């Protein structure tokens, strides 16, 4: 039998745990760009990293399937042939958080990355390159999803 007092104690403990779980990681990873991952569109994501308005470019490429059978695992790749790419990002337009991944490009790696993302529904997927001179270039591709990857 649970008394009211015990109940209150347990609730307090749970609340303390939740607070810990919610706050500690944020403090531990101050470098993780929270604002960029909360962005709802491409311009906001670019702005969160200090970039200007995105411009479409042929020198940035996005690779991926035309139709993805399973939205939980969609292989996508982003690359750019231009010199001076500082950061590459993969964005999924209709996901709750537009930004999926950001890659900091250094001299020792090619500006070309492949990974797998989740997609909630058919959507445009963008590769965004942020250049050392401040330009923001992007390329887009539509990927149709037959089975969504977010939610139950």
């Amino acid at each position: 039998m649970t008394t009211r007092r015990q109940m209150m104690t347990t609730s307090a403990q749970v609340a303390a745990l939740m607070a810990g779980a919610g706050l500690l990681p944020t403090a531990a990873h101050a470098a993780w760009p929270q604002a960029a991952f909360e962005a709802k569109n491409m311009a906001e994501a670019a702005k969160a990293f200090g970039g200007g308005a995105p411009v479409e470019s042929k020198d940035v490429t996005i690779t991926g399937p035309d139709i993805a059978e399973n939205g939980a695992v969609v292989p996508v790749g982003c690359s750019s042939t231009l010199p001076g790419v500082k950061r590459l990002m993969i964005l999924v337009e209709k996901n709750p958080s537009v930004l999926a991944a950001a890659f900091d490009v250094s001299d020792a790696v090619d500006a070309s990355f492949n990974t797998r993302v989740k997609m909630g529904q058919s959507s445009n997927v963008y590769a965004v390159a942020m250049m050392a001179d401040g330009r923001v270039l992007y390329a887009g591709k539509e990927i149709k999803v037959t089975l969504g990857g977010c939610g139950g």
Partner: protein
Amino acid sequence: MADPMRIRAQMAGDKATVRVLMSHEMETGQRRDASGKVIPAWFIQEVSAAHNGKTVLTTQWGPSVAKNPFLQFNVRGAKAGDKITVNWVDNKGDKRTDEATVS
């Protein structure tokens, strides 16, 4: 501690192609369990790679990277026998580092 990563680093021309397969749930924080409670987000936030101890790549990830994430990148100026180290940190502060040799 999470399961080890599977890393393959192979020479292709003057570059090493590195493929990493991490073992992680990558929970988005959007899903609900059977009783309707939101499953808290749990995903890898940062991945970094080092070539012979020198960091060559850092990435920031959001929850929309797929479960058991895959990452492929090319390291310039690598040679067979070089060490590639990959390290990730998730939003709960859990971390893992694994190493592979370029072949």
